[in-house]
């Protein structure tokens, strides 16, 4: 029976040009609620451009980008913040504020995104989010007191504390060792299992192959392959750069 769920993320004929160079060329795809997908491709394939289009850091040159029903391709500047509250973002370099504790980093994101959140509520929800990523006992630690994996977990907690329907991660395991990378991927899988759509841009072939999830492959800005979950083995070579 075909799915009747509205896609959380939808690209329709999206092209993004930088001068005469096409970073993305006529890309169309859709992600449904709770789906976990990998975005792979060599360096310069357009992965980061695609993620930046989702978050409306840039606009497409052509085509439509829909995020949870919002038209990211032509959204007003004053509404961009509303769109971004629907998208959690995780970076390779964590981007935590060094002068705030782990709990404060998470609470900060919650409160600046929604001024109606009180201190008590922010603290409670931040601790819940940290608990969920396995750092319930490190809320008072500053980023420099945490390992790389722990910092990335704090970043994930910050990304999901507002309960966005979509989570995007740009090379989230790029700075992590192998074991920590697996833990991180398990965490993303858990998040997806609770209904959040997760899109992970990665170079890590091993992770892509073992997780057997949907894999979207970009090469030179074109979507060259969109492998459904469970059939990812044959395309793993494309993820190498």
């Amino acid at each position, binding site marked *: 029976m075909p799915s009747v769920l509205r896609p959380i993320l939808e690209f329709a004929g999206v092209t993004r040009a930088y001068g005469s160079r096409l970073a993305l060329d006529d890309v169309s795809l859709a992600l449904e609620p709770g789906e976990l997908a990998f975005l792979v491709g060599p360096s310069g394939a357009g992965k980061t451009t695609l993620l930046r289009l989702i*978050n409306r*850091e840039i606009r497409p040159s052509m085509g439509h980008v829909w995020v949870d029903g919002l038209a990211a391709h032509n959204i007003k*500047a*004053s509404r*961009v*913040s*509303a*769109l*971004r*509250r*629907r998208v959690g*973002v995780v970076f390779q370099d964590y*981007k935590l*504020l060094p002068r705030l504790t782990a709990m404060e980093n998470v609470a*900060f*994101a*919650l*409160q*600046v*995104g929604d*001024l*109606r*959140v*009180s*201190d008590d509520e922010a603290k409670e929800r931040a601790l819940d989010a940290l608990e969920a990523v396995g750092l319930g006992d490190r809320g008072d630690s500053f980023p420099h007191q945490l390992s790389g994996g722990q910092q990335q977990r704090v970043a994930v907690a*910050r990304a999901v504390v*507002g309960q966005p329907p979509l989570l995007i991660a740009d090379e989230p395991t790029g700075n992590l060792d192998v074991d920590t990378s697996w833990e991180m991927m398990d965490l993303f899988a858990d998040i997806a299992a609770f209904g959040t759509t997760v899109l992970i841009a990665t170079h890590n072939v091993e992770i892509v192959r073992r997780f057997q999830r949907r894999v979207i492959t970009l090469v030179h800005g074109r979507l060259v392959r969109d492998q459904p979950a469970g059939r990812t083995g044959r395309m793993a070579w494309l993820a190498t750069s």
Partner: protein
Amino acid sequence: MAGDVVKARFPRRLLIQIVATNIFRYLFRGAARNWFRNIGSAAPALSSMTLLLLLSGLVGLVGFALYNLETIQSAEASLLHVYVRDDARAADVDSLWDRLAADPRIASVTYTTRAEALARAQHMPGLPQLASATESNPFPASLDVRVKNINDVASIDRLVRYEIAVDPVYSTSYDRGAYQRIQAFLLGIAVAGLAFLGLLGFVAVTVTMNSIRAAIHSRRDEVTIMQLVGAPRWMVRGPFVIEGAITGAVAGIVVFGLTAAGIAAASTSFAQFAPGVTAAVAAFAAALVFATGLGLGSGSSLISVRRHLES
């Protein structure tokens, strides 16, 4: 009753309190904390803003004083002294007086005797020495004609200059170019003052914009995170605009303090060196300067933020 679900709205007052607390924390307290933390980079902006406001205030007060001076000079220029010859007959003087009084362009005509002219001269700067230099009275009697419109002074002068009762050598006090010279001088001062202030304003705004750009750069990570977690645009920009406003306000307070000190030290002598500049006027100017500082600081920050903080 047990088991009933009671639907209750979140108390509005509490919600307002929470929002106000968060705005105060992230906008005002955050801006103030960052301003003090980065005072080194804000110092040039603060200095130039203070200098701008101080000079603006001074130029404004000088301009006000000159405006008052010009008003006085204008009133003086519309007063035409028609000097009566020493041997003029009373009938000729009366006749001239009557004709002038009947002229619709003239507001009033009064007669000043030689003795009154001498007495008046003794109260004018530089003339007492002249008045006492000779035993005789060198000042002539005059008909003092108050002309309604200053532009009619020249025609009244032409009208009376060759009257039989009028002194043929020094017939009137009319100086064709005097008023125009004063006006040209004041206009020149005003233009030069405004140009100077414009230049200084440009420098102050540019320096403030650069200090805000430095502040944005130093907090790039925080700004990026705020943008990415969906903070409203005004909340991302707000602290920087408030930082600029703090710079302007502090500069304004410094100028306000200097002005207050000036008022306290020399309130009685204002009227002597600057006609019309009372303590109240100076206080109003200081308040205006403070408001200008606030506006300039926040305005230049806003420009900088719009230029450097767009995602």
